[in-house]
């Protein structure tokens, strides 16, 4: 998985391309921790190019959500693809992780 981030005006966008599984999940946690430590706690994870996520990846997203909220911000997900949507739905985590059509819309209204 290729992970990168970009700090925008009012939030940071992390792009996750590839498979979010037990190999890449710890790297995502590290990146979010780095972004929060650098002072940005409003984070959107762009999942447009995330073709696959397993329960390890889901656990990482939940951990990252907690980290962002503990720092006074929030973590949102964007451009969710079918397999990721399926995992979110089967685990009912689609009610916990708020999904937006695009990264730009995730923090667009606040």
């Amino acid at each position, binding site marked *: 998985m290729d992970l990168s981030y970009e700090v925008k005006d009012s939030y940071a966008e992390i792009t996750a391309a590839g498979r979010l599984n037990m*190999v890449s999940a710890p790297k995502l946690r590290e990146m979010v921790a780095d972004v929060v430590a650098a002072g940005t706690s409003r984070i959107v994870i762009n999942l447009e190019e995330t073709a696959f996520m*397993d329960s390890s990846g889901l*656990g990482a997203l939940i951990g990252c959500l*907690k980290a962002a909220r503990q720092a006074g911000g929030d973590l949102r997900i964007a451009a969710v693809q079918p397999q990721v949507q399926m995992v979110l739905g*089967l685990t*009912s985590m689609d009610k916990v992780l708020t999904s937006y059509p695009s990264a730009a819309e995730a923090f667009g209204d606040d």
Partner: protein
Amino acid sequence: MTEVLARRTLRQAALPEAIEAVHTELDGLWDDASFVPDMDRMTFATAVIEAASNVVQHAVPESRDPVELGVDISVTPIRLEARVSAFGAARPDPIDTDPAMPDGEAESGRGLALIRALVTTVTFKRQDGTNTWILSRSPLHD
């Protein structure tokens, strides 16, 4: 016995890198069995990766030799089957084969519940120092 139309097998050290190898075998399997509908591919592949990840994360060696992950996936016209094995692993603690899905902000514990939701049958057997999860999905949907 129903004809096996495509098959992939893998056996290697139960390390995180093995998960990427399982993904590669699944991709190759779908190339060989292009008739399998997208929904079946997506659900079955997710279950297989969950089971393989479970071996890598939780299998405990029975001796001084490290655990090896084995994956044997076969496709027939009406059934997908995966045998996901932990070779050289100790007998696991009693397994709740039908666990509830954790809710709220739990960061782990969803793997087996997810597998149950994704496939038709899940069975476990232990034989000759090997723990094997057998996952099947059938029938294939259009």
